[in-house]
């Protein structure tokens, strides 16, 4: 099968074109480096089935990060290249185009973001550009689908190109082409451009960032709590609970009842405490966690698509340098707040092994995922805001302190930030909702089976007395150091499978506030869940992951022990 590659600078819309061509949905956002791994899809060109590959963006065929290495390697393998060019930044984009043409492969150029050129006063003579380069040039607007048909119709007859230039004088050639095809007219500044200035100059940007953070977290809480209180809890209490009570009577006491329904609390089903597959096993992922996941990803997607994240990266750069990272490392951290798996993947935008080790370790230790956060808010939040402040405050302090120490004691230097700041764009609702539904579906597919498995294993371990046994063995640490009851060891075991179930398991233990805080913090820190662990091993390698795991376990014990002493 012939391979058609989508190649271009970061953040020019390759992933959107890919989705248009193949119908395969991939995450697209408004910041450079959203795609860190290639995605394959297929489409039919006349009678021929071809493979389309979405490649991470690169500025140059001389890579500087693992994500770019993928791009450069792939570029050599393709049969046809669709070079996606940002029409609003012709000069910089043509630099890569000329490098791609050098290989002599068939190239078709998609002049994307075409609609934006009109808004900002750029006009490009497409025919002339096509004549100079000797390859088809198609203006496109991927997000609305404009020009995609024309692009597809050029693919079957794409031929090897015969554009020649002197490699040493590439920039001169680029300049020459741009001056021939592009005209820029003066125009007034738009509202979004004013906002761009305000959100990058420190005097206004720092207050703006603080306000944004408050708005973001309030919005997530408001939407999450609203969905739980108005939709999900009533649905479970009024519709599902009566059904389950019927089933409970039908089954009678016994093993099957214990597994499916779980323990009745005062003759009733308690969706958090009962620990049955059909009660807690469904309630935790769907009613307790999903609303927050939905709220979080809605807000995150808005942030991603607006173009704010790279600006946030610039603002926090100085702080991140103290942690051996640079500003861009805020992106894996933000994604990690949703789920540590994409968080770990996103460390690929960082250039050096050292940075990726530091970022991945810090994220795995101190950044709780949305599923865990939702359960902590639900359980610790019952004791008021103090408990929540203690849990998340501690994690923030750990993140800063541990980052500072790791930077001190890990060999090597970390490079500086160097990133394109995209213009603000109004999020496009169709694309945003598609992305949201992909992430939510991904959560349901990934979470529900694991939560059910977690609940099942818990039931089996309890009924066989294994948790009690391990609890007694681990008592010196669990009780002695952390001040938790022996039974809490069950949560630590299940925490490896799913952290949200683990937090839920704390409730029947009747912990006081101090113990709740210690347990929540330790559960976040001590080890990633199995899904995140698998990705971390792949991204860091076994040796670095072992180092990272040793740091996780020891820092969890130290911080948990300290909290137990102080509180």
């Amino acid at each position, binding site marked *: 099968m012939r391979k058609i590659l989508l190649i271009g600078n970061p953040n020019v819309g390759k992933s959107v074109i890919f989705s248009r061509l193949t119908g395969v949905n991939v995450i697209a956002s408004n910041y450079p480096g959203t795609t860190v791994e290639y995605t394959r899809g297929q489409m039919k060109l006349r009678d021929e089935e071809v493979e389309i590959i979405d490649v991470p963006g690169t500025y140059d065929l001389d890579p500087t990060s693992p994500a770019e290495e993928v791009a450069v390697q792939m570029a050599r393998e393709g049969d046809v290249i669709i070079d996606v060019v940002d029409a609003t930044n012709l*000069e910089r984009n043509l630099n890569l185009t000329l490098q791609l043409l050098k290989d002599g492969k068939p190239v078709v150029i998609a002049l994307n973001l075409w609609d934006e050129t009109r808004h900002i006063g750029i006009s490009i003579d497409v025919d002339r550009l096509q004549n100079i380069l000797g390859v088809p040039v198609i203006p496109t607007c991927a997000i609305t689908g404009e020009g995609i048909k024309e692009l597809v119709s050029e693919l079957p007859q794409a031929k090897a190109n015969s554009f020649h230039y002197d490699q040493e004088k590439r920039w001169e050639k680029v300049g020459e082409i741009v001056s021939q095809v592009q005209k820029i007219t003066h125009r007034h500044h738009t509202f979004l451009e004013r906002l761009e200035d305000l959100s*990058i100059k*420190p005097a206004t940007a720092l207050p703006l960032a603080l306000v944004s953070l408050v708005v973001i977290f309030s919005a997530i809480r408001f939407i999450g709590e609203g969905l739980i209180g108005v939709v999900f809890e009533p649905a479970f209490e009024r519709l599902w609970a009566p059904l389950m009570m019927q089933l409970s009577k039908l089954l009678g006491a016994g093993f099957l009842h214990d597994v499916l329904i779980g323990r009745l609390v005062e003759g009733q089903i308690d969706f958090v405490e009962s620990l049955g597959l059909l009660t807690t096993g469904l309630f935790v992922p769907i009613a307790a966690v999903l609303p927050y996941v939905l709220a979080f990803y809605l807000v995150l997607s808005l942030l991603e698509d607006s173009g704010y994240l790279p600006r946030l990266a*610039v603002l926090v750069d*100085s702080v991140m340098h103290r942690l051996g990272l640079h500003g861009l490392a805020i992106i894996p951290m933000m994604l990690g707040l949703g789920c540590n798996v994409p968080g770990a993947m996103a460390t690929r935008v960082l250039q050096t092994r050292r940075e990726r080790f530091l970022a991945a370790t810090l994220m795995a230790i101190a950044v709780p995922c949305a599923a865990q956060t939702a359960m902590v808010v639900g359980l610790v939040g019952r004791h008021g805001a103090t408990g929540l402040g203690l849990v998340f405050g501690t994690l923030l302090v750990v993140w800063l302190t541990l980052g500072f120490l790791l930077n001190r004691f890990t060999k090597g230097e970390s490079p*500086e930030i*160097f990133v394109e700041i995209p213009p603000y764009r109004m999020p496009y609702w169709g694309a945003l909702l598609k992305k949201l539904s992909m992430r939510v579906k991904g959560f349901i597919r990934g979470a529900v089976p694991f939560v059910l498995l977690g609940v099942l294993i818990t039931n089996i371990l309890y009924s066989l007395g294994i948790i009690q046994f391990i609890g007694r063995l681990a008592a010196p640490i669990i009780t002695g150091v952390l001040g938790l009851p022996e039974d809490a060891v069950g949560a630590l075991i299940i925490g490896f499978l799913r952290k949200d179930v683990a937090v839920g398991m704390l409730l029947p233990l009747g912990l006081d506030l101090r113990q709740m805080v210690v347990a929540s913090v330790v559960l976040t820190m001590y080890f990633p869940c199995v899904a995140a662990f698998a990705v971390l091993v792949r991204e860091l390698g076994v040796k670095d992951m072992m180092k990272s795991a040793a740091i996780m376990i020891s820092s969890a014990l130290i911080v948990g022990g300290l909290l137990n002493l102080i509180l």
Partner: protein
Amino acid sequence: MTTVDLTQLEEGKSGRVVLISGGHGLIRRLESLGIRVGKNVTKVSSQLMRGPVTLRIDGFQVAVGFGMAKKILVETKR
């Protein structure tokens, strides 16, 4: 005409890049994002505590770390 590095350039002021005092790797990296000798750049902002410098080149913006910004010399009109 005076020559300053990008950390010294005033916010809102423009200059023409005259020298990048770094190795081949740095020059190539800056080049790939459009920063090269002869280009006009405008400083949009700088951050506190030796933070990155944001530049506007042609129609787009780039954030450059403080150390890198120090290595980029521009010529400005008084």
